[in-house]
């Protein structure tokens, strides 16, 4: 199983499936970094709404993926963390420190499409 990555205009949307193995997560990280370059993407949404559990390894990996995207020039948002998953993460002591999170895909895309400082003169 791999992570489907869709291109939507300037942005990439990656939907992480439940119970992704560590190797698959690592492949996904490589793949996403490569596509950000190929498509010159400005933003990445990582959707984890299908994920039923984020342990310390998965959290660290997703956070790394988000930070790598940013270094490659694309903002990243992690969306769709389920309530139970969020609750267990926080109890465990985990966070996506330094990474933006949003409720779902729609909010994530809205965040990426928000007017930014650089757009000031345009309108």
């Amino acid at each position, binding site marked *: 199983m791999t992570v489907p990555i869709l291109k939507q205009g300037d942005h990439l949307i990656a939907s992480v499936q439940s119970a992704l*193995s560590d190797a698959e997560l690592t492949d996904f990280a490589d793949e996403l970094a490569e596509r950000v370059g190929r498509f010159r993407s400005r933003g990445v949404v990582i959707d984890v709404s299908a994920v*039923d*559990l984020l342990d310390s*390894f998965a959290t660290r990996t997703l956070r790394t993926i988000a930070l790598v995207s940013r270094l490659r020039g694309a903002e990243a948002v992690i969306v769709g963390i389920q309530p139970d998953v969020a609750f267990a993460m926080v*109890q*465990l002591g*985990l966070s996506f420190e330094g990474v933006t999170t949003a409720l779902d895909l729609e909010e994530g895309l809205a965040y990426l499409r928000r007017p930014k400082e650089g757009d000031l003169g345009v309108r």
Partner: protein
Amino acid sequence: MSDDVRVAVAAESDVLAARQEGRRLAAAAGFSGSDLTIIATAISEVARNIVHYATRGEILLRVAHLDGRPGIVVVARDEGPGIPDLEQALQDGYSTGGGLGLGLPGARRLMDELEVVTELGRGTTVTMRKWTA
């Protein structure tokens, strides 16, 4: 005891199996909602540690009772290298493997009880328990 479940852990796919079994048994013990995810997350941490630090081992899952309250007992056992400094290993942020070092202390926060017995060169046994409310 018909409720005993054993999952051999030698690869990452076994970690996924162990947490699925844990979720199932916790539901059978009467846990629901976010408790199922909490228990599965704790199992994931100790199972991953087996793969990462001891190569192989096993997870034993059992329904138990405390003062009539049902609960779940999780035993993660391996014959790996053991933990040299257990006190440090139980502290947030300590990792010899480049991890976040939140596995053991985090699992302790997720469960009601967590004990570790470890001997250098002999192996490690982590026992965790959680009781229904």
